[in-house]
């Protein structure tokens, strides 16, 4: 599964994207975030404030409870500030 990061989430994690093998039992975006936070302090830092970082699955906004099965690309980013 491909993960992509934007803005300060990208800076905190220190990469734009990565391929990860998500273990069985990780069913939702929230569970994926919890798993990522255990991978190192850069992830802990990026996701330190629960509920701030937003997610999208295959280019569509999703909530933390969204299922990740079948996702090709999951993105994490701060609240948007375009327009």
């Amino acid at each position, binding site marked *: 599964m491909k993960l*992509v990061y*934007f*803005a*300060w989430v990208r800076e905190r994690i220190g990469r734009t994207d990565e391929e990860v093998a998500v273990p069985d039992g990780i069913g939702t975006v929230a569970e994926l975030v919890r798993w990522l936070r255990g991978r190192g302090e850069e992830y802990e830092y990026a996701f330190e404030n629960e509920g701030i970082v937003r997610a*999208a699955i295959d*280019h*569509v*906004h999703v909530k933390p409870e969204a299922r990740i099965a079948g996702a090709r690309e999951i*993105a994490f*980013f*701060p*609240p*948007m*500030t*375009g*327009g």
Partner: protein
Amino acid sequence: MAHTIRIQAEPFDAAAETAALTDGRADIGAVVAFTGLCRDEDGRLAALELEHYAGMAEAEIGRIAAQAQTRWNLLGLTIIHRFGKIVPGEGIVLVLTASASRQAAFEAASFLMDYLKTHAPFWKREHLKDGLVGAWVEAKEADDRAAERWR
């Protein structure tokens, strides 16, 4: 209904885009044009840099445009959103809505901007006059509330 959605680094010409939208049309009675400009924050800013999620930006703006077309009887729609470095005075975003009479065009343009600000995957970062790269612009709760009122 034909619509134009572009994500680009280059500046846009609001007058030329309006002409392109209305050229040869006798059914359009109202066009609302909204241009969002980069401001210098009291002389503090040298530029804004906009990062975007290529692929999702086009998809999400397309979904927002489709919602507007469902809610209002629009005869034309143009959305241009820039990315990259933008200096004060330059346009960041252009929304054009065309309809038979003003109400639909005004409301749809307002809805589109509220949704672009809170849903389109773009992030602004400040570049300061003294050459330093400044902070990421923080999302405003007022923008979330503005988008909420359309629900």
